[in-house]
């Protein structure tokens, strides 16, 4: 821990002016007036329209591509195929196995085969129709487990199993032998869509100096730059990425979306700026989704409620290309046993290629799919033993300094028990019997349930994970704080301003925050992995003392004392003990300007990590995690199976809360996204074709479905974090999933094993339960 961070740590609550306060979003006014310009809102003169020709089949050989007719269109600017790619024809964050433009084979409907640019959007659409691709369709691989079998048609040369992750600890056989109860079930999860409201799109502009500018919403502009450079054989330093703000991301803009298409087109339009903006239908068909999982879970426990063995096997449908699939499965397996200390575990996960679109990063990153197993089994155990479900969880939860199920000692902060205690004390939980008796109709039944989970923060072992920030003193005595990590809706920019204003002792309005700009801001990693508050906050906290040092030197020169006699107070530096012998920040700027001294400082740091990676785990364990408990109340219509979530109590442990309003926003949004995942959302595919095509048939929660949501944070101080903060953005949608499933059971007696819990599935589960009860008599 650096001295700067120690200083930040020791700042007392009552000394804080900005951090921990309900500071309004600094970008709020632009957003509510429509003045904020997203990348797809920009305009450039003399523009042309770009379009992408997507694959006609989910799996097919390309025999030939004929663009002759397309080139005859009067409004055509260019038609590009794989032959026009100057560099490497592939992209992908971990394994670049997705062709920019397919040459020999297409592996999913989202595959791009050609690009066109034309004078108008209508002309570009017409030109797509004039490209003739001769295909030889292949048998599509659509079931991941069949895809794993020898002899299945192969998508890639190394076979259909992209990765196989294992984590073992203790002696699983002995664990099950010693168990008094064993539960075994299989759970299925849906292909959830991010459904960000701004579809993928943006601009490619070849600048007069020959450099390339890409204006495109994204979750990691600095990495996009490298992926573009690789495909276009360009000097990355000659590519500028402007990637903020995003009209929603949730992981769906982590991978390349259209950036390379924009770059390729821009290099082929004679210098005219090119715009691409996917329709919702094209976004649904080509965009990344959440991995559907099949998870088989076996859990052993003692009569006293101690969990002693947990075995898990997950098979994930990663679609046609790797993207972050391997990492998603690795994180899922790391979290497969929940935030508990189960001495014997044996968990494995397979990431499998199919022709079902492409799956990748999505808020929760695999944990959503596996948390239902352990949480459902704890509820079964509670029922079997008559023990309280919260007590069982508290009993088995690991605390700071204890060994997790993975066998490593968790040295970072752990808030599970505290979140469970808050759940126990919550008004909803205490009065659950009263609420359950108040169903709105005689044929409706209410249930209240609890679940807890966790989610890693940062990248884990084997992946670079660093933060960087610059602070510049401006002419008017204000500061420009640059952190490349994009704004995708979370409000991280506001938190950055809070941290900077706190440390530089100025007004928050004196901080200009720059994000998502590879020219102005240093590479600080992705906006993903619940890392941006921690990373950006700590990078600023690392840079700020340098700015203070630089200003103190200047103040010492002006005031003709030694630098160690200078003290910092609100908007000024003064001689210790003599408040009136002071200079303000504007005067410091003027002094530095006259002396031609630099006025920018940098702060760099690496996120803390564990020493040893668990063999075959793909990066586990992480150094720290956010923890969370949800209590929910549902009402189920027993005639239709329709479930409504009425109340949610969200109890996060994200370390110190830097902005309560932002935290609530995350908890509320995460809860509702979790409700969508659990009850409604699934992109249905058949033989590799999308059955679900747009918002007509993909239902996300509307305002009518939003329950009453209460946020009660637990602040387990994380020593390494800025002011003690960790991260929040993903865990907020996780425990609510098993909590809703358990609440449906509490209401109806029917257990749900396949999500989403549609009315049909809930109704059928109720009928099956009824039948079982009758047969048992």
């Amino acid at each position: 821990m650096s001295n700067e961070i120690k200083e930040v740590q020791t700042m007392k609550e009552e000394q804080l002016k900005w951090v921990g306060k309900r500071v309004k979003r600094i970008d709020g006014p632009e957003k509510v007036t429509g003045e904020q310009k997203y990348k797809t809102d920009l305009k450039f003169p003399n523009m042309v329209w770009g379009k992408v020709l997507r694959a006609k089949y989910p799996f097919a050989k390309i025999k030939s591509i004929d663009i002759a007719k397309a080139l005859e269109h009067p409004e055509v600017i260019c038609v590009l195929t794989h032959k026009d790619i100057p560099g490497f024809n592939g992209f992908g964050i971990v394994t670049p196995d997705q062709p920019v433009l397919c040459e020999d084979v297409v592996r999913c409907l989202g595959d791009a085969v050609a690009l066109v640019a034309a004078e108008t959007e209508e002309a570009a659409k017409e030109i797509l129709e004039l490209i003739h691709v001769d295909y030889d369709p292949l048998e599509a691989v659509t079931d991941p487990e069949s895809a794993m079998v020898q002899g299945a048609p192969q998508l890639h040369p190394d076979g259909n199993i992209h990765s196989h992750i294992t984590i073992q600890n203790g002696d699983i056989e002995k664990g099950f032998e010693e168990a008094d109860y064993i539960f075994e079930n299989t759970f299925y999860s849906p292909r959830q869509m991010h459904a960000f409201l701004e579809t993928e799109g943006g601009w490619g502009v070849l600048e007069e100096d020959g450099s390339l500018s890409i204006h495109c919403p994204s979750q990691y502009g600095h990495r996009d730059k490298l992926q573009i450079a690789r495909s276009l054989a360009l000097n990355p330093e000659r590519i500028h990425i402007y990637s903020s703000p995003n009209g929603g991301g949730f992981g769906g803009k982590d991978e390349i979306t259209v950036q390379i298409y924009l770059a390729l087109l821009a290099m082929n339009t004679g210098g005219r700026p090119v715009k691409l903006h996917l329709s919702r239908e094209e976004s649904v068909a080509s965009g990344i989704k959440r991995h559907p999982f099949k998870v088989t879970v076996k859990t052993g426990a003692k009569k006293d409620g101690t969990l002693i063995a947990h075995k898990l096997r997950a098979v994930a449908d990663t679609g046609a290309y790797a993207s972050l699939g391997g990492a998603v499965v690795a994180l899922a397996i790391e979290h497969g046993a929940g935030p508990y200390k189960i001495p014997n575990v044996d968990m494995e996960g397979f990431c499998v290629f199919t022709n079902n679109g492409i799956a990748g990063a999505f808020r929760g990153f695999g944990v959503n799919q596996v948390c239902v197993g352990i949480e459902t089994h704890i509820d079964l155990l509670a029922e079997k033993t008559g023990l309280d479900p919260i007590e069982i969880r508290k009993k088995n939860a690991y605390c700071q300094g204890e060994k997790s199920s993975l066998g490593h000692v968790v040295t970072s902060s752990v808030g599970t028990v505290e979140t469970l205690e808050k759940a126990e004390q919550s008004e909803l939980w205490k009065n659950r019997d009263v609420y359950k008796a108040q169903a709105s109709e005689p044929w409706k039944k209410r249930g209240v349930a609890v679940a807890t989970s966790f989610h890693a923060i940062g990248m884990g072992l084997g992946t670079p994970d660093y933060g960087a920030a610059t602070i510049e003193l401006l002419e008017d005595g204000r500061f420009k704080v640059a952190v490349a990590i994009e704004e995708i809706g979370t409000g991280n920019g506001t938190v950055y301003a809070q941290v900077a204003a706190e440390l530089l002792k100025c007004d928050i309005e004196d901080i200009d925050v720059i994000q998502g700009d590879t020219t102005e801001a240093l590479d600080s990693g992705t906006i993903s992995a619940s890392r941006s508050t921690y990373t950006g906050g700590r990078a600023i906290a690392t840079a700020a003392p340098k700015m203070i040092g630089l200003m103190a030197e200047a103040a010492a020169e002006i005031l003709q004392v030694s630098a160690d006699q200078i003290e910092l107070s609100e908007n000024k530096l003064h001689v210790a003990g003599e408040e009136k012998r002071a200079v303000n920040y504007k005067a410091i700027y003027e002094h530095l300007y006259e002396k031609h001294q630099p006025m920018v400082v940098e702060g760099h740091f690496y996120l803390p990590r564990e020493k040893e990676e668990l063999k075959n785990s793909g990066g586990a364990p992480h150094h720290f995690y956010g923890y969370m408990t949800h209590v929910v109340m549902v009402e189920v219509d027993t005639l239709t199976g329709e479930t409504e979530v009425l109340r949610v109590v969200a109890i996060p442990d994200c370390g110190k809360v830097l902005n309560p309003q932002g935290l609530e926003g995350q908890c509320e949004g995460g809860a509702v996204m979790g409700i969508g995942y659990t009850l409604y959302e699934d992109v249905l595919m058949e033989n590799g074709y999308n059955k679900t095509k747009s918002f007509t048939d993909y239902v996300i929660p509307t305002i009518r479905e939003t329950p009453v949501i209460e946020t009660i944070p637990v602040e387990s101080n994380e020593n390494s974090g800025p002011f003690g903060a960790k991260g929040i953005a993903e865990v907020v949608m996780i425990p609510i999933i098993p909590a809703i499933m358990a609440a449906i059971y509490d209401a109806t007696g029917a257990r749900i094993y396949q999500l989403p819990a549609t009315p049909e599935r809930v109704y059928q589960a109720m009928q099956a339960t009824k039948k079982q009860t009758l047969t048992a008599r």
Partner: protein
Amino acid sequence: MKEIQLKVNGEEVSIKSPPASTLLDVLRDELDLIGAKECCGKGECGSCSVEVDGEVVCSCLMLVGQTENTNITTVEGIGQVGGMDVMQQAFVDEGATQCGYCTPGIIVSAKAFINSIDHIPTDDEVKTALGGNLCRCTGYTKIIKAVQTAARRQLAAGGAPG
């Protein structure tokens, strides 16, 4: 191409456009009013909501030819940075915007709604009024609160529908 007269945010404008262009495209491409967004293109998300002669419509579903001689209000006409409307201020105060892409459409719908009532709406009333506006970030909780806060402030300031 047809010459079409419109009144947008209080100003008379004359545009030349194919009458089958959507109102949304004309607002965004011809008039530089980019607050309204296209996010589904078929009236499912409400991100393109504007007011036409007092009625909130999805501007992606309305052809500009249909709006000849009408009075159109977009989010830009409701208020701008430096002179925000009570609804916009309430959204900022309550933290009811996150990525913000849906926000302009919601502001238009919410403002029209509170202008049509003379009380502080219940949660259910807000839910009914904004049922056609999708938001993927906020979970809607703070949007409900912001609409109620705006209604309360508007009533306190004289209650006159603005």
